């Protein structure tokens, strides 16, 4: 913790103000200088948001966990290579979330998740009994709509998932994607319109 710690003896470190007062950029800088607890604090702050974001693209909980870790690894590695870990003002969170979104999309492209998920799985309950028609219909609609989310144009998908999955306010969605906040809202509206059209069309066959 450069500039914020005092030596109080071998192996003992005193951090003034605690982790909470440290901006992400300072923690990243300290981690890149070899301070591993700084990474743990970055993890504590952001892992839940990253996980919520990458779950959309993951086939299993293990995939989501792995993607969460990989997003952090990539973010830290890219910051190191770019020499951008030195600045306290470095916007680590938008950097991390953008990497997570790209990583998720690439993972999906590699896995072809929807092709691997057999429809038969939807037709069986956990105990092997057939699902009720209504529940089966709901599951099928969920599957189609979630698939449609993944097939949205890139910006619409990114805005929708950052808003719906990660729960970010539009101002942060815009910062993360490097666009205007109004622009983010427009992309969100377009995405919701598309999904609504799909639901309306699919609803005509509702039992």
């Amino acid at each position, binding site marked *: 913790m450069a500039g914020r710690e005092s030596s109080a003896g071998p192996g003992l470190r005193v951090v003034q103000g605690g982790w909470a007062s440290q901006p992400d950029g300072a923690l990243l800088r300290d981690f890149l200088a070899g301070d591993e607890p700084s*990474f743990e604090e970055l*993890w504590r702050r952001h892992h*839940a948001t990253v*996980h919520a974001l990458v779950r959309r693209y993951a086939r299993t909980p293990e995939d989501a966990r792995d993607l969460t870790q990989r997003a952090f690894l990539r973010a830290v590695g890219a910051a190191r290579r770019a020499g951008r870990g030195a600045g306290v003002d470095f916007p680590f969170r938008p950097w991390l979330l953008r990497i997570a979104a790209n990583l998720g999309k690439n993972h999906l492209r590699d896995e072809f998740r929807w092709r691997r998920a057999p429809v038969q799985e939807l037709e069986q309950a956990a105990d092997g009994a057939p699902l009720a028609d209504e529940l089966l219909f709901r599951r099928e609609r969920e599957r189609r709509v979630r698939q449609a989310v993944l097939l949205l144009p890139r910006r619409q998908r990114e805005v929708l998932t950052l808003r719906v*999955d990660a729960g970010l306010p539009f101002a942060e969605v815009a910062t993360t994607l490097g666009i205007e906040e109004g622009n983010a*809202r427009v992309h*969100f*509206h377009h995405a*919701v319109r598309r999904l609504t059209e799909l639901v309306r069309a699919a609803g005509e066959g509702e039992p």
Partner: protein
Amino acid sequence: MNRPCPSFEPLLLDRAAGLLDPVGEARLDRHLAGCPSCRAEADAVGLALSLAALPPASAAERAAVGQGAREALLRLRADRSRRRFAARVLLAVAASAAFAVAVPWRPAAPPGAVAAAPAGTGWELPDLDAAWAASADPTADLAALAEAEPLVLFAELQEIDFDIE
């Protein structure tokens, strides 16, 4: 199917996005009370977003992810080790290449050539006849070999049962 009122559709989407303030909410609610088309649209938008939303992660899944910091650190360390190893290999290859360029290859001279050649002159073919005459009589070794005691005596050879059919 009736379309929603153009002036209220943005409000429906804003509400779906969680962007409506209380005044906008009240205005939209008043309109929805008397407009079936906008009510149907509001229901469809709400349904689309509820279908699109993922179910929340289980407590076990959240806990497993939350404890992943140490594992991520291990992966970072392994990644760092790999990069350092790759850098060392690259350095070794670069050093070898630099050595090869700096020290050009020369063919090795035959034995004796260095001693025979006076300093400052090039290598010359040695006088093979003189070298042959200077060496010992080549037949001497053969004569000595013939007189040497054999390793196996003839009598011993007869006692060996070769058992060959």
